[in-house]
């Protein structure tokens, strides 16, 4: 009896020490823990697969019973939305293509140049204190820890761990998630650019603004009864003619930021706050020259040589601005564009910053 008790105490002490050692190694991302997990998963995956096959009908039946009506309603709404968006998608694709060509011409990085792997979400987070999903692609497809994951709407999260054929994605609502972002200042609503008819001789792009216009050297301004047309000739810029499709009355209208407010950006860090709470952006500069951040302002990834994500991936929009006194700057609550509660097909950008790349 006494021997049994001693053995048990030793076993408990051994397991406690093992747990502490593993926790320490795991927190330090030691390769031995990754190897241990990889080996274990080789044994565990068949178990999980078998249980999934057995329990899938049960889950499906439960969903069917609980959500049948909702699914029908949702289906109807989605059909309507698809019809609305089909037209817009064609125009958007053309704009994206133009933007990518412009970025490429100027030697700027574009998402189009980054390879992607399409993956399907196959499992939700099994715990209540982590915001992760599992996807059905892994290291054999080139996926590495830290790579950004997006869906059609925008950034979803980043790869947290990888095995050969699976990966775990940490959602951007997880409190462990942090990423450098840019806050794209928006122009005031109602700013319209009017391009003149094709037969009007013009040397460069033409911007017309309702409201305030800063007249600068080399800028010619004419005013009509309804709009103001500003012709800009920028020093050192070789003008080129952009052919636009003919508009109904020879005038095409597009909405762009006012000259002085175009692409005013500042950076911050987006951090998750757990389920049911929007992520926040901190470390935002309070410099008034950078403009005011309003509700609805888009948030995109900042990029950079040390960032895990390339620049300009859309994350979401500012849903609330919490002003703080002093130099701390405001805290911005960000509503992600991607619906994180309903993820299906995802894209993993095979992107690694220069600092993370290893030479073979």
């Amino acid at each position, binding site marked *: 009896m006494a021997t049994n008790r001693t053995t048990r105490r030793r076993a408990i002490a051994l*397991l406690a020490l093992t747990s502490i050692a593993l926790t320490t190694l795991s927190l330090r991302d030691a390769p031995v823990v990754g190897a241990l997990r990889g080996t*274990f998963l080789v044994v565990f995956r068949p178990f999980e697969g078998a249980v999934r096959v057995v329990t899938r009908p049960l*889950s499906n039946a439960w969903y069917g019973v609980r959500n049948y009506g909702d699914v029908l309603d949702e289906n109807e709404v989605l059909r309507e939305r698809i019809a609305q968006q089909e037209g817009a998608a064609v125009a958007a694709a053309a704009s994206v293509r133009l933007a990518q060509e412009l970025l490429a011409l100027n030697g700027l990085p574009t998402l189009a140049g980054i390879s992607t792997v399409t993956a399907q979400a196959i499992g939700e987070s099994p*715990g*209540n204190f982590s915001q992760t999903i599992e996807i059905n692609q892994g290291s054999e497809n080139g996926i590495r820890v830290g790579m950004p994951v997006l869906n059609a709407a925008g950034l979803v999260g980043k790869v947290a761990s990888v095995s050969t054929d699976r990966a775990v994605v940490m959602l951007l609502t997880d409190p*462990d998630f942090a990423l450098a972002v840019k806050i794209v200042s928006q122009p005031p609503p109602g700013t319209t650019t009017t391009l003149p008819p094709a037969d009007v001789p013009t040397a460069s792009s033409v911007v017309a603004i309702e409201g305030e216009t800063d007249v600068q050297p080399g800028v010619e301004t004419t005013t009509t009864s309804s709009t103001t047309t500003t012709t800009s000739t920028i020093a050192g810029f070789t003008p080129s003619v952009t052919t636009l499709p003919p508009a109904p009355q020879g005038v095409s209208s597009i909405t762009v930021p006012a000259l002085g407010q175009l692409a005013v950006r500042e950076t911050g860090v987006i951090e998750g706050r757990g*389920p049911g709470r929007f992520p926040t952006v901190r470390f935002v500069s309070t410099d008034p020259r950078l403009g005011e951040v309003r509700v609805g302002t888009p948030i995109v990834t900042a990029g950079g040589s040390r960032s895990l994500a390339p620049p300009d991936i859309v994350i979401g929009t500012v849903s609330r601005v919490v002003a703080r006194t002093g130099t701390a700057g405001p805290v911005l609550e960000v509503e992600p564009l991607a619906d994180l509660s309903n993820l299906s097909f995802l894209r993993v950008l095979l992107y690694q910053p220069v600092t993370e790349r290893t030479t073979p």
Partner: protein
Amino acid sequence: MTTLLRVLASRWTRLVLVAMLAAAVQATVAADLPFLGVVAQPVLLLAVAVGAAHGPADGLLAGFVAGLVADLAFGDVVGLGAVAIGAAGATAGLLVAVFRDPPWWVRVAAMVVASGLGEAYVPVLKSLVGIDGWVRPRVVAVALLVAAMHLVVAPAILPLGRWVMREAPEELR
């Protein structure tokens, strides 16, 4: 051959296999069917069942092993779940230990209470190792919901907890 049979018949082998099954259930059906956004924790339930059936020491050991299995299968920090679930197993055992010959419903009640507490240990431990952001009022709601979900299945899991850590027959020891 005899050694292999002994290993296969040992309660530790049984525990690892059942823990893997519980982890697989947690990663599949439990994760697919959350209740009010909260996922049931079969691995935790197994540990508290062992604790309620066999006492704090076995609950602790079974919790450590089952938690380690869960950590390796889907945990974000390997070893942390082992400590939390081990502590939950021991808690269940301690709650039962105050009764001389507890009836089944006391054991079930201990399982439910220990499940709630065990679920709350996870964010506390995460916070201790520097993973902040989880210790907030939601933990109470999650712990209560996990306890409520486990209450439904605890009477059926208690015999499993008893069987998992039962000593192997004399001839196979």
